[in-house]
């Protein structure tokens, strides 16, 4: 048993657990008792793998980025999650959870979404399976991400505006939890990141672990070694990073780097760099590190990237941070935007601004030559064109 994986009590070291009100106990407990049995069954794995192949388009390529490699003096590989159906890694998790929900006999699916990527990925799998879908989205985010709202509606989802609090991702998550409390029998909540009460962080990480499972095979073909020297991914809640790190956690020679969003500067007051600004506490059902006041009130984060705009990180990340197994770095809005533009010009790939935060880390590293670096390109930048246009004035 890896010291970096969840234990039977639902903890990663000091972090995790299931801090939920009694109203959610039965649903979460049902999930806890059943998730491993279901997702490890041959029949589940067959359908999961088949959908990832035929529907999502996996395996996603591991692309050796030649011009980027020349620029930074290392062998840089991009794990192309941006080429998945719906344009990001989010669908790996929603495919897994929809198959699980079916096997639990649930007929109604709820989800939260920030930028809309997880909402779209959830609406997609609900259309695929003919299940009712309700997505909670902050009222502010609905205005900022109108095309994703339209996509969800086209697929038959009902999109409900979260009008509480700051009307963004944190509040959408609160509304989804309230919906689940009020619909305790027929509903499954598809959480979009490695957050929430146990077993969600572990379950979502397992579904996303396909990223590093494929990476190992692809690296072996391309470099004769299954492991890279570095694996780099951006972190909001942390699901693409959890998937990218999963099969390297117990390989001490692989240096893991998670990149948080520093917004307008880590200490500018407009930032989402949780490991720097946060302290230990409980949010959305698990003990982790979160941005909060001295009185324990959750602080609203900021990032130009809506997908990284979350005041906490998953409990596994909190543990990787505390133990030093992974390094938590950060990139500002400006650094991420420049890195996104650089990738576009050098490789003809427009990354999501989330993923551009991971790319920005390259500027801050010095390589010994011939080192192998894998970066998780978690999503494509189509959804961010407005942002790129406004920022660069195209």
């Amino acid at each position, binding site marked *: 048993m890896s010291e970096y994986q969840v234990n039977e009590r639902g903890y990663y070291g000091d972090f995790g657990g*299931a801090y939920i*009100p*009694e109203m959610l106990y039965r649903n979460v407990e049902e999930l806890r008792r059943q998730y491993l049995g279901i997702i490890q069954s041959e029949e589940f794995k067959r359908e999961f793998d088949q959908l990832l192949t035929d529907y999502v388009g996996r395996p996603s390529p591991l692309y050796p980025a030649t011009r980027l490699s020349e620029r930074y003096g290392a062998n840089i590989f991009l794990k192309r999650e941006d080429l998945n159906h719906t344009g990001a890694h989010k669908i790996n998790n929603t495919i897994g959870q929809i198959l699980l929900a079916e096997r639990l006999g649930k007929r109604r699916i709820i989800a939260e979404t920030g930028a809309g990527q997880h909402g779209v990925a959830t609406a997609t799998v609900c259309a695929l399976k003919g299940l009712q879908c309700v997505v909670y989205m902050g009222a502010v985010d609905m205005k900022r991400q109108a095309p994703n709202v339209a996509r969800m509606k086209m697929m038959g989802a009902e999109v409900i505006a979260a009008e509480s*609090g700051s009307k963004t991702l944190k509040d959408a998550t*609160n509304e989804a939890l309230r919906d689940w*409390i*009020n619909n305790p029998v027929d509903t499954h909540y598809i959480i979009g990141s490695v957050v929430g009460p146990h077993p969600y962080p572990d379950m979502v990480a397992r579904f996303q672990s396909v990223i590093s499972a494929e990476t190992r095979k692809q690296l072996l073909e391309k470099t004769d070694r299954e492991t890279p020297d570095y694996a780099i991914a951006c972190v909001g809640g942390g699901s693409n990073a959890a998937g990218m790190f999963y099969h390297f956690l117990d390989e001490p020679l692989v240096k893991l780097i998670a990149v948080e969003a520093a917004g307008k500067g880590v200490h500018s007051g407009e930032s989402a760099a949780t490991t720097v600004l946060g302290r230990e*506490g409980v949010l959305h059902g698990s003990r982790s590190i979160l941005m909060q006041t001295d009185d324990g*009130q959750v602080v609203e984060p900021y990032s130009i990237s809506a997908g990284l705009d979350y005041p906490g990180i998953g409990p596994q990340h909190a543990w990787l941070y505390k133990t030093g197994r992974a390094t938590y770095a950060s990139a500002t809005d400006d650094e991420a935007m420049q890195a996104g533009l650089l990738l576009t010009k050098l490789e003809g790939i427009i990354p999501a601004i989330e993923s551009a935060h991971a790319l920005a880390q390259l500027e801050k590293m010095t390589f010994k030559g011939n080192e192998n670096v894998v970066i998780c390109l978690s999503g494509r930048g189509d959804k961010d064109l407005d942002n790129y246009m406004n920022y660069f004035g195209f």
Partner: protein
Amino acid sequence: MNRINKLFADSGDKRILSIYYTAGYPTLDSTLTIAETLEKSGADFLEIGFPYSDPVADGPVIQHSSEVALRNGMTLHVLFEQLSKLRDRVHIPVLLMGYVNPVLQYGIDRFCQSCKAVGVDGVIVPDLPMYEYEAQYRAIFEANGLSNIFLVTPQTSEERIRKIDGLSTSFIYLLSSSATTGKNLSVSEDTAAYFSRIQQMKLKNPVVVGFGISNRDTFLRATDYTDGAIVGSAFVRLLDEANYLEKVPAFIQQLKEVTDGH
């Protein structure tokens, strides 16, 4: 015997009425004045909520009161400062109710000690689950003579209810349905059957119903099967009205009018 146990021991056939409201709402210093007024008006015990930015078990009314209270500057430090005069002015049992994160930041030991120092009798922390309570917090609560109150919902299994009954030291908080706060009590036969099922379990602790109790009708229906009921959102709504303090006695009286005797 602590105040809560004494209240239930002495209550006989009386239907116990508890009122919930949010500390620091509608104004920062309204906390104690409201408590005093409620006691004078006939409330049997009080639940004072300490606000949290992300109250996932609460509906719109208590979300709103929490937001306003936070804007008014309410924190646990401020609340304990206000409550330092609690027992000069209020004699009925008082519980604090809120979410776990502010308690963790304040410090769990310090929180329990502060409760004891100001004369708070018990605590309701909905997102502190039984498992964590037993493993990490029970000893600290008990050392300070503080009751921890657990929730039971229609989905809670009999086995789990028995366990909760074993861990509880004052009363069990029975949710009228699986719902966030501020919904109306269902009139369905299911609800009556659920109350009746709990009644027939003959638990060692008194049972008090909360969530969805808003008027005399719902109060009576809930307490036909149980020892008491809690009114929260309906009372918090009253606090929005002009001259709300003057309206508290009538609000309590209409609930209690025929509350004596089952």
